[in-house]
């Protein structure tokens, strides 16, 4: 039996970890973790079979949404938002520029720190595909570093 309660701690920590890398804000990351886990709970019968990667995907998307929201509501470029260290701002900018698939690979490979083979298993693609997406994702990250002020 797959029980939400039994997996709660590890899933929450994973969601929080992904959100924190992107957002760098404890309170916002807790919000993202809460929202992610609540969505998982509501859909538990559907997602419990692959809850780990599902949580990473949703938490990553919610965190990116928050970055977009910050940009919209504050009306300033991300790199001028105070209180966020420059490297994180570069990461945010790069993640926004990635395709959903590339973002997913970068999240799993570098943010969650899964080995390539495990990312491939998680996403149901070949290691070669993971390498390709990771490589393009990293290129976008490097580009972001180059243009950073």
């Amino acid at each position: 039996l797959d029980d939400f309660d039994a997996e709660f701690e590890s899933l929450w920590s994973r969601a929080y970890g992904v959100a924190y890398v992107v957002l760098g804000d404890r309170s916002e990351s807790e919000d993202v973790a809460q929202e992610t886990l609540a969505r998982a709970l509501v859909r538990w019968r559907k997602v419990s079979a692959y809850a780990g990667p599902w949580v990473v995907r949703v938490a990553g998307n919610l965190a990116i949404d928050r970055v977009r929201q910050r940009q919209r509501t504050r009306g300033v470029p991300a790199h001028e938002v105070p209180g966020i260290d420059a490297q994180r701002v570069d990461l945010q900018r790069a993640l926004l520029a990635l395709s959903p698939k590339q973002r997913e690979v970068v999240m799993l490979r570098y943010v969650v720190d899964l080995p390539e083979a495990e990312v491939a298993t998680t996403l149901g693609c070949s290691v070669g595909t993971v390498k390709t997406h990771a490589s393009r994702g990293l290129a976008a990250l490097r580009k972001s570093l180059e243009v950073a002020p």
Partner: protein
Amino acid sequence: VSGFDFGALRDPVAPEPGPRERNGVDARARQLRARRLRNRVALSTGAVVVIAAIVLGAVGIRQDRGPEIAVPGSTSTTVTTPITAGPSVGDRFVPPTTEQHGLVVLAVTLPDGETFTMKYPPAMRIAQLGFAGSTGVVGFSGLSSRAVTISYTTVQHVYGDQAPIATYRDANGQPVPVLRAPEPPSSRGRAPVQLVFQFGHWLVQVDDGQEAMNPAQLSTWARNLTGSFDRSGYLMLHASPPLRVANWFDGGFGSLSEHGPDQIELASNLYCGQPGSDTSTRRRVVSAGEPAVTWCDGNLHVSATGASNFVALAATSLRVSPVP
């Protein structure tokens, strides 16, 4: 490798989730479930309301095995017909069934026209749980995509005499109002506004939430989304460019927002065919203490929860097969 030190971006003292976090998740999950219900018809406790049974002719309801309805005519009708109500429970449509070799045969049509048949023992009474759900409509050319909520009720019933915030015209020149969702305002502010279509007795609500549409976009939505009904009475949505009806559906039979009652959740093109996702093997799950059984039938994810007998029957006897 990347020039990024991802390790440095992680929280060195990440909090451990405890009862506070768990309670927060439960509370938010309750809100999410309540949102599914927010526009739904209030029912007196335990009451099953069967709305007037007038569907273009004869409607028969057999209390034991559910309604069996004969609907003459073509497979679909236009959307401008007056509102007529078929059998329903709450704001969910109770579709007709037939019987075959001691099993109930229930045809299901999803809003994108995908059809399949469910066969089950009469004791499961799936049709009587009522059908509702949500589906996606994709927008192109700068038009945003939206998930739309589909239920079996009327604008009047849900919104009362609320004056529209704005009114647009559909493809036939009929009014499509923008109304405020009848939910209590959230802590973040006012309840969202919704573009509201009435196709026969089916209500289609389009949340104009996070990224509010401008009047031109709302007008485009109103003009390009239409509905028709199949011969069982299910709603099928149609969209013309720059809109397209997505092939996913999330809904099913029963009050999916509540714990406890019997329910069959159906999700098309959302949760199957992914690494680690369910397969055709029926899998027992526990969610919030409730037993359930889940599996995939092609791209259709099926899950059943409720009374132990209901779940056991679903695990052993419920058959779902696509209609080509």
